[in-house]
Structures are given as C-alpha cells and as structure tokens.
C-alpha cells in the first residue's frame, strides 16, 4: 500500500540552507545585525518546536519565512511597547582604493536599494520581500501575509511605485 511520506527535516541542515534568508529577512525589519541574529535563533527554536505541525501546504522555506516575519513583527511590537527604537547600523565603507571606484559605486547603489526597501511601510515591505527577495508567487505571498490575492497585487503595485519614486534619479 502506498504511503505518503513526510520529508524528515534536520534543523542544522535547515539552518545551513535557509539561514541566510531568515537572517537577512529579519535584518530588513529590525535593521540591526545583533537583533537579527536573536530573531534567527528564536525562529529556529520555533521551527524545531513546530516542525511536526508543518503540513507541507507550502514549501518549508515559505513556512520559515512566515515564522520569521511574524517573529519580527512581534519583536517590533514589544520593542515599541518598551520604547526601544532600533537604530540603523552605522555602515562603514571599507572600499576606498582608487581601483575600487566602480565597486564602491555599485556597493553604494546596493546599499541605497536596501535602505529604500527597509524604509517602506511594513505592508509594502512585506510584499516586496516575499515576491522579489524570497521569490514567492503572488498567491504564496498573499497566503503568507493573510491577505486577499487582489490586495497583494495592488500592494505590490503600490510598493513598486514607491520604490520607483524613491530611487528615481538616484541610481
């Protein structure tokens, strides 16, 4: 008789495969490397505790990103309640050699794009990160964010418009 087998996930393997996605998504919300690392740890504790409840309705990565975004939002709420406002980290530019001019320029452009995405209101940042950073489909993103697909589409369109306005003439 055929039995559908649930894949067995090893937590360390998940950390190695999706760790950067979790850490970087967290960073986009909390804007601080150390806080992002704390969230990374919390996310994988939760993943480990709830792994048995994962039904496989979405990919394991989507499920983990959902936990990450929710954890970040919970953190932001608790930080707000405690009047702790995360500061943007000071970014030291270490590329200063003459030959590195193009690399510096490129890096500045990447930084600018990252900062612009980070400054978006949460509802726009959510959809942009899901679709363009985590490569989800609109319907996956809508499901993750618990919004209607139509809303996800219109938010994505508005988010792109905002990004475009913010970056226009700067890159």
């Amino acid at each position, binding site marked *: 008789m055929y039995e559908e087998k649930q894949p067995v996930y090893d*937590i*360390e393997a998940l*950390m*190695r495969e999706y*760790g*950067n996605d979790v*850490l*970087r998504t967290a*960073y986009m919300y909390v804007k601080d*490397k150390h806080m992002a*690392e*704390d*969230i*990374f*740890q*919390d996310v*994988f*504790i*939760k993943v*480990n505790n709830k792994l048995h409840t994962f039904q496989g309705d979405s990919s394991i990565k989507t499920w983990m990103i959902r936990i990450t975004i929710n*954890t970040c*939002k*919970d*953190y932001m*709420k*608790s930080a707000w309640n405690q009047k702790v406002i995360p500061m943007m*980290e000071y*970014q030291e530019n270490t590329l200063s050699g003459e030959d590195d001019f193009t690399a510096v320029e*490129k*890096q500045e*452009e*990447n*930084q600018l*794009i*990252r900062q612009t*995405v980070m400054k978006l*209101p949460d*509802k726009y940042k959510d959809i942009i990160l899901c*679709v*363009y*950073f985590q*490569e*989800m*489909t*609109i*319907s*996956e993103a809508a499901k993750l964010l*618990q*919004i*209607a*697909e*139509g*809303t996800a589409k219109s938010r994505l369109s*508005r988010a*792109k418009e905002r990004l*475009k306005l913010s*970056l*226009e*003439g700067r*890159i």
Partner: protein
Amino acid sequence: MDSYKDNRNKKPFDDFEIENLKDHLNTSFDYDNIIVSEELIQKTKKAIEAGEAPKIKEDKNQPGKHPVFRIAQVAAAVIVILAGITVAQNGFIKKDIVSEQSAETADQSEIEEKFSLKSVPSEENENTKQYSLDSTSPSVGEDESSYDIAVGAGITGNTDNSANGAGVDNGTASMEDARIDITSEETSSMFAAENEIIQESILFTDLLPVYDTITKITINRNNINYEIEDSLSDKKDFYDLLGGFSLTNGENISGSINYVIKIETSVKQLYTITINDSVQIISEEPQNNQTKYYHLTNGSDVLMSRLDEFIAALD
C-alpha cells in the same frame, strides 16, 4: 500564478530592474557581512538542545487582549458600578432629606438662602445638564457658580465633569455630599441628569462590538473616495481608530460636511459618520427601519487628524 522569475525578461522596471532586487540585496548583505556564521548555528543548536524557549513572545492578537477592548471592559465595569451606586442612593435620599427637615438648626435658613438653586429657571437646569456632557460648553462658569452654592454644603471645587468615567465619578461623589441640602425634587432631577450621562456615554465599540463584521468602508474626503474592502488589517486599524472616542445619543444635525464615512457590515447595519465642526454617527438598521444618531463628546480635531494619517497610509 507566475513567479517573478517567469516574468524576469518580460517587464523591466523602468529605472532599476526590480527583478534583480534579490541580487542587489544579497550583494549588499554579503558586503556588510550579514551572513549566518558557524558560531550562530552552533549557538542556536545549543539553545535548541537546552530546550530554551523563544525570547520574543507571540502576539496572538486576540480581540479581547487589545488595549481598546481592555479599556472598554474597565469603563463598562465602572459605569455599571456607578449606575448601581446612583440607583441605590436615589432610594435613600428622600429619607435623608426628611430627617434633615425635621431637625431645625440655626443654619437652616442660611442654607435655604444659599439654595436659590430652587428658583433657578428650568432652562438653566438644562444648561447644567449640558455642561456635564460637554466640558467645553461656554456656560461652564455659570454652572460652576451653581455648583459652588452647593459647595457650602459640602461639594468640593472639582467640577470638571467631562463625559468620561472619571468626570462622572467626580460628579457622583459631589452629589453625594450635597444631598442633605437639596430638596427631593432637585435631587431627583440632578440624579436623573447624572443617570442620563451614565447611560448615554458610549464608545463606538459598543455600537459595533466586532470589527470583522465590517464588509466595506468607504471614506469620502473632499469628493475623493477611498474604499477598504479586502484588507482585514486596514479594517481593524480603522476600527481601532474610532474605538476610543466616546459618544452620546442625540438628534440629527445637518450642515456642510468635510468627511463622509460609510461602514457596511455583514450584520445588516450601516454606520454613516459625517464630520464637519462636530462628528455625527448615524446608525441604521434597515431591516428594523431604525435610525439612531450619536455625537462625539470631544476630540473631533484628534479624530480628523488621525483620519488624515489613516488615509495617507492607504495611498
């Protein structure tokens, strides 16, 4: 549904290729060394093995846990207690006054003289009631003096009777002190006014207890319509925005309007909020052919500025 990858070569994003956002972000993260380190993996593994609980508590966002609901619950409890006390006092006051009248003291004539409140025309009594409902009423000074007469018999100087729970509370305490010096007729009319305040002061959350019955919100500002239909979070935000303002029953007020907000619900109730100098909420139950009017007791400026912020966030 196609992922962005499928459309990658179809639709470039004008000035910068948003489809390449992942590459831009990852390059930037690599550069800033925002990378999962071996140390972080080992630290997390140890935490898991030690059975550590997550540091950040989950916010289940239960409606009953929301601060607005908690405040509403406390306010409701206070109102019920005050109403109980007031009703109980009404029963005893007549007795108190009769015993006071029988004991003729040297001060009696003086007190009666002070209580020229008896001869205050009914229109003025109406003002006193209005003052209790609206602390910004221009008749405050006049009413304060009316209360000051009673102060001679025990009322303290605190006459800041707004429509909130604290204001009502002060008013009730003051009334209690004054009861021996006023006639039963005056007492009943004052307590009736007080009861009226207690009964009439309500929150929007009393009119519509749960936000997820809202099917559609239409905001018309300067002839521009904003609609909220799909987003539950926007509906909740809007509901929270209205929830904290206290309202009183009233009559229909017409006039020029800056905002018209229509809230449609799945429970066949329609709320129309009109805002000009004052804020009016019209609650309609078409099935029962019932229409009620409510007015914001104060804070219309605050409500308008919050609405502006809310609309700005919708854009």
